């Protein structure tokens, strides 16, 4: 108890004394967290949207002939050779006609007299809804095109593929900004704590002389790192929330195209980001202590 009371007092006094460099560090940590969480938020939401799109995403392979069962097996094998799929359905001409009729509903009268085999048979391929396979959908389609007896391959809209490529790009950017976050926070915190260690060398040596334990001397600096990481992360996320609300407002007006379910982080993610930043900063301060505090 008394240990922590003393440690907290020391850390606070130290942070007040060096408020300038503390401010710089806080700013850097906040900015890094902001950049990282911005990209991460975009990525998470894009992923979410992508999943929803994937729900009714399928490749329709039109065939010139309805394949008999042995040939169906052959097709199945060839398709699976390219990629895992969720399921494959063979649609005969008749089934296609029935579906069409169903879609037209009451207007299906127009179909009277039309031969039931006027629609081509097809294979419907439902790709696995993972990012990897979805972003390969164009190549998948090209591959299916090369199978024998295939007339034409159709899948969603043109932009779907680009959208999934975008998601992948976002993933790379998120990873990069994450590494940036790791480097800046640990480096900045290590740097400020090193400065404090040099500035207070005399005092720290004295503490040792009058019987302070190593923990008594070190813990305030670790706490300082933790506070910088925690408060910095809160600052960065706060700024992101403000930005998010501002953007939402821009889209909110009466003639708005509402963003499909573009949501802010859920609580566990917020806590995780703050925790991560705190841990990183503790690591930074720990490394500075290891290298520059010789007791």
């Amino acid at each position, binding site marked *: 108890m008394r240990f922590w009371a003393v440690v907290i007092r020391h850390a606070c006094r130290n942070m007040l004394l060096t408020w300038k460099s503390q401010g710089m560090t806080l700013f850097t940590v906040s900015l890094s967290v902001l950049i990282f969480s911005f990209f991460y938020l975009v990525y998470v939401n894009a992923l979410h949207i992508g999943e929803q799109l994937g729900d009714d995403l399928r490749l329709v392979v039109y065939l010139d002939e309805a394949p008999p069962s042995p040939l169906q097996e052959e097709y199945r094998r060839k398709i699976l050779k390219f990629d895992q799929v969720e399921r494959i359905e063979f649609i005969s001409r008749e089934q296609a006609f029935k579906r069409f009729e169903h879609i037209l509903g009451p207007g299906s009268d127009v179909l009277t007299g039309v031969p039931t085999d006027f629609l081509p048979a097809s294979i419907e391929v439902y790709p696995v809804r993972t990012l990897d396979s979805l972003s390969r959908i164009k190549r998948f389609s090209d591959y299916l095109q090369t199978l024998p007896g295939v007339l034409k391959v159709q899948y969603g809209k043109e932009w779907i593929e680009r959208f999934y490529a975008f998601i992948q790009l976002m993933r790379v950017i998120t990873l990069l900004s994450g590494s940036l976050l790791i480097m800046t926070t640990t480096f900045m915190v290590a740097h400020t704590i090193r400065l404090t260690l040099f500035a207070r060398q*005399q005092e720290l040596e004295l*503490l040792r*002389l009058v*019987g*302070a*334990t190593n923990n008594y001397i070190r813990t305030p600096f670790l706490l300082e790192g933790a506070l910088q990481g925690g408060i910095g992360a809160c600052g960065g996320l706060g700024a992101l929330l403000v930005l998010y609300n501002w953007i939402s407002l821009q889209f909110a007006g009466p003639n708005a195209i509402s963003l499909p379910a573009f949501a802010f982080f859920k609580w566990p993610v917020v806590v995780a980001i703050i925790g991560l930043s705190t841990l990183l900063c503790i690591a930074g301060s720990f490394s500075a202590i290891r290298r520059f505090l010789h007791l």
Partner: protein
Amino acid sequence: MNPENSPPPAMIDLIKVSKVYPPNVQAISDVSLTIAKGEVVFLIGMSGAGKTTLLRLISRMEKPTKGMVDVAGMDVIKLSERDIHLLRRKVGMAHQDFKLLPERTVADNIAIALEVVYCPQSLIEKRIQELLEQLDLTKKYNTRAGELSRGEQQRVSIARAVANNPEIILADEPTGNLDAETTARVMALFEQLHRRGATLLIATHDRALFHDTPHRVIELRFGRILSQSKTEGSYDDLGELAPALEEIEP
């Protein structure tokens, strides 16, 4: 086994201790010295004789090049980094260069020694008041240490050394900058700590301190123990020390 006949337990025990500073300054050579619990010992000798070095060896600010140092039952040389605080809490040292934090107040400077042993704030406050009163510094409570006179700084450094009632007090030139009256105050404080059972080792040039003292006086010269008075009896009784004294104070 009569307890009165058995020697009092040694608080500080140096056995054939040598200290060579790099490259080859022989500061202490082959010093053996035993100080009993509760004893008061004056360490004298001309400048450069090795007094400060000897005190630093006892508080483990230096490690000896050779020999054994035993303090309060701890083998000081083998003491690991993690356990040094155990020694330092038993040994209060008033340094020759004071080692005060100039930017902090007098009270803060003294409080440091009490905070590291997790002394409650109210007790810290009380102890500081008490010490400042004894050393005639009450008015300087909130003054920054850097703004004090040398003599005042010296007293603050003594106050810090004795603040948490350590078992051993090492005072390096504690009255070097003090007038007779203030010196008397410091000595009264030491006397009080002695009565409470502390062991004191006082390095000094100030003849007034050890002249006529009932305590042991040890003289160092060129890092060796030149002479010692008997445990009982005054320094002046010791004929062999007289020539040495002449050199210290012509």
